[in-house]
């Protein structure tokens, strides 16, 4: 069991970097799941067992099931990633490792 002294050196609130990371990880996992459902479901319905492949519907020259089942969600995923990186994800303090301390010190001296 930790001593009172050791326990007192930490706040009673969870570390914000941990909390933010966990929140972001949950959102990312949901994103992966949505991508899986969209791509696999759409391709299963429209890409498998096409009755008349000789006259396969095309969009932008590619089979339509590829465009709406893969290319479109890919584009949406890129847009989502952009929003996630620049609007949703928090900038958090990562801390300084022991092996970096001398670098910090050197930077201070140089400064």
């Amino acid at each position, binding site marked *: 069991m930790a001593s009172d002294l050791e326990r007192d050196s930490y706040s009673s609130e969870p570390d914000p970097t941990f909390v933010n990371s966990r929140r972001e990880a949950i959102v990312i996992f949901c994103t992966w799941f949505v991508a899986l459902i969209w791509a696999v479901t759409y391709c299963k319905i429209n890409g498998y067992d096409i009755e008349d492949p000789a006259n396969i519907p095309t969009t932008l020259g590619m089979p339509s099931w*590829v465009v709406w089942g893969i290319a479109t969600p890919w584009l949406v995923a890129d847009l989502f990633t952009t929003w996630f990186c620049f609007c949703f994800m928090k900038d958090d303090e990562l801390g300084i490792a022991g092996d970096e301390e001398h670098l910090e010190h050197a930077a201070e001296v140089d400064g």
Partner: protein
Amino acid sequence: MANLTFISSMKEHCMLAAAESGNSVLFTFLIYILGVFVIAWLSNKLLQNRNFLSEYFLGSRGLGVWAFALTLAATSSSGGSFMGFPAKIYTHGWVLALWIGSYMVVPICVMGLLGKRINQVARISGAITVPDILRDRFNSVWFGLVSVALIIFFMTFNLVAQFKAGSEILRTLLGPIDAFNSAVASLPEWFGNFSGLGADYMLCLVVFGIAVIVYTTYGGFHAVVWTDVMQGIVMVVGVIIMLPLAISQATDAIDSSDSSKTGMAAVTEEMAKMVPPRHVSVLVALPHEATEDTQIPPGTWVSFQGTAPHGANNRVFRTKQRHIIASGSQVAVVEAIEIISDSDKRRSFIAMKSQNENDTVGVVPSLEVRFVLNQATVKIPADYNGDLNAVKLQVRTLLPWTDENGTKRIARLYAVTSPVDDLKAGDALDAYVIDFVKTAGTTLETEQSVYKAQVDEFPQLAGIEITSLDDGYYAYGAADEEVGSYVMAPGPHRDSTSGFLPLSLAISFFFMWAISGTGQPSNMVRLMAFKDTVTLRRSIFTVALYYTMIYFPLVIIFCCARILLPGMEAEADRIMPQMAVTLTTNVGMGWLAGLLIAAPFAAVMSTVDSFLLMISSALVRDIYQRNMNPDATEKQIKKLSYIFTLVVGLGALVGAMNPPEFLQDIIVYTGSGLAAAFLAPVVFALYWPRSNHQGCIAAMTGGFGAHLSLYIIGFINGEGFTPYRPLELDPIIIGLFASFIIGFIVTLKTAPPSDKVVQKYFYKKLEG
């Protein structure tokens, strides 16, 4: 060494075209190697005045956006991305878009799920390696050792496989260059004898191996990262250049009378008409006996040339491997593919005509196919009680065969290739039968009555039958109702009747790329090295754009390759360099091929250097410094790091001289096995305060065990290195589920971690 007559072929013709760009390929390659060594030298300078271990293995946790983004992207894109993936697109068509589809979320998953948190925890504990994190997070020496053992186990196999892949790629790239062939020819015989794969492979292995080992050993993590950046740029530039060239040239290659459409629509329409080729053997013959050994290179077009004893005379074939018609002989049995689609045939005959016109020796135009053969197994029954000395298994002997539908059929023997001097009851003999055609109705009845008459005349043949016969057609994609398999899912497949990508596998690949990628220790190490969260955010965005610019365009480019280069199933792994040469020479810019061809080499090099550093860091940091000599001086650590990196690299080089079988399967096994073992423990360690070392060790060994057991079951079932797939799901899914569930249950059944540990990693440290 006998003088060999080299028969030119379409491929060789392309090689001639490539020869013009050959010098530029070599020039590009040398510049590239030089650049790598300059980077290593600069990186070594960075090692001065810094904490050696942290700098050598982790770049002092100071990677910026470009370095971090491109090293992660390039390390993930192994040789498979630029050799195996294009070959798969060419072979299976548009369904590869679904196969690679989860790359739309790979960057955000691989970097975002663990990135920020693992970087923070590594800083809190001062960890340099993944086992470091696990050991410190749980205060468990054993956990550290178990994870080191698994990393060394998986990575060692993988490193040997990657060394072989790198050498094979280099051999493919340099093969057409005269200077390279001259160098191979001048090598002493003992040098080539080190490897069963030939002197050219050996030379490529030594060049590739020495280059990677030297720059990685000397420069450490920063050398690896900055060469990755250079390699990442080479890859994306190559793809961007190829995309418009491929679309425009493929459109031009389609006969306008065939299609009113243009651009990719015409390409897709043409692909919809294609039927996968047939894999056969052909008996090719010269008009006269050869006066010296005559080589038939892989990729040579051959046909019946008007003499067609079996079927129409407009059949065209392409050889798969190099064959030699020995001096004094006139014929050879050659493995080949037969082009079946009409439009493919037309382009193939054009290619053959071009090949024959460019043949400087004059042998190719006279080379003709005499017979089409199928491989078969002839079985003598275990209870055979006749006189085996009287059995004559000679050409045109009729033998019965029961097909997959249970229909009794008759095949004509061409030759038995197994020794027949001492036949015994129960023997299974390898054989060729003459082009097997499935017959029905009166034709089949006639065949059976002829067979009966033969047995009446030669009763010793009774009971001897064919137990397996490969008619060469794709198991999925060749039947009438499966036409169009190149433009739809599941895509054609040579062996599987379910096609290339049944739905269960499509789901598995969403786990494989996005989730398995997150669980790779090589990616985790990079996530410990970025500078701050601003770098992480910008890097996720950068890698997302990077993958979008690479993977989807590759699908388009190599669908176009089906139009431009018919018959490349004969040597699908060469499609990337062949396409680069074709696209650039067609626009009179052969020098550009050097840049495009450097991409796959760059990809495999960036993977190998990372794996090499991971193994040596496990040995130096996790075993030596943390368990054997905690008080080791920096000088000792430095010396050992150089020595271990060098020794591990040289060991992998020696292992790759005669690599084990199933190498590609080993790469798949190690990749998914690492994820099954590491993902759950790391996720628990980072995000679950209640997690303890008992639960996480159970998660690690449980995932490893569940994954391995599926491979063992597959092996016991006689499927070699192919794992058992319950519900057709890949072992990675089973391994991950097992790992998470076992870890969860064991954690709850054992004591919680101490408050001290929980506070250290999950609560904010107060200032002062």
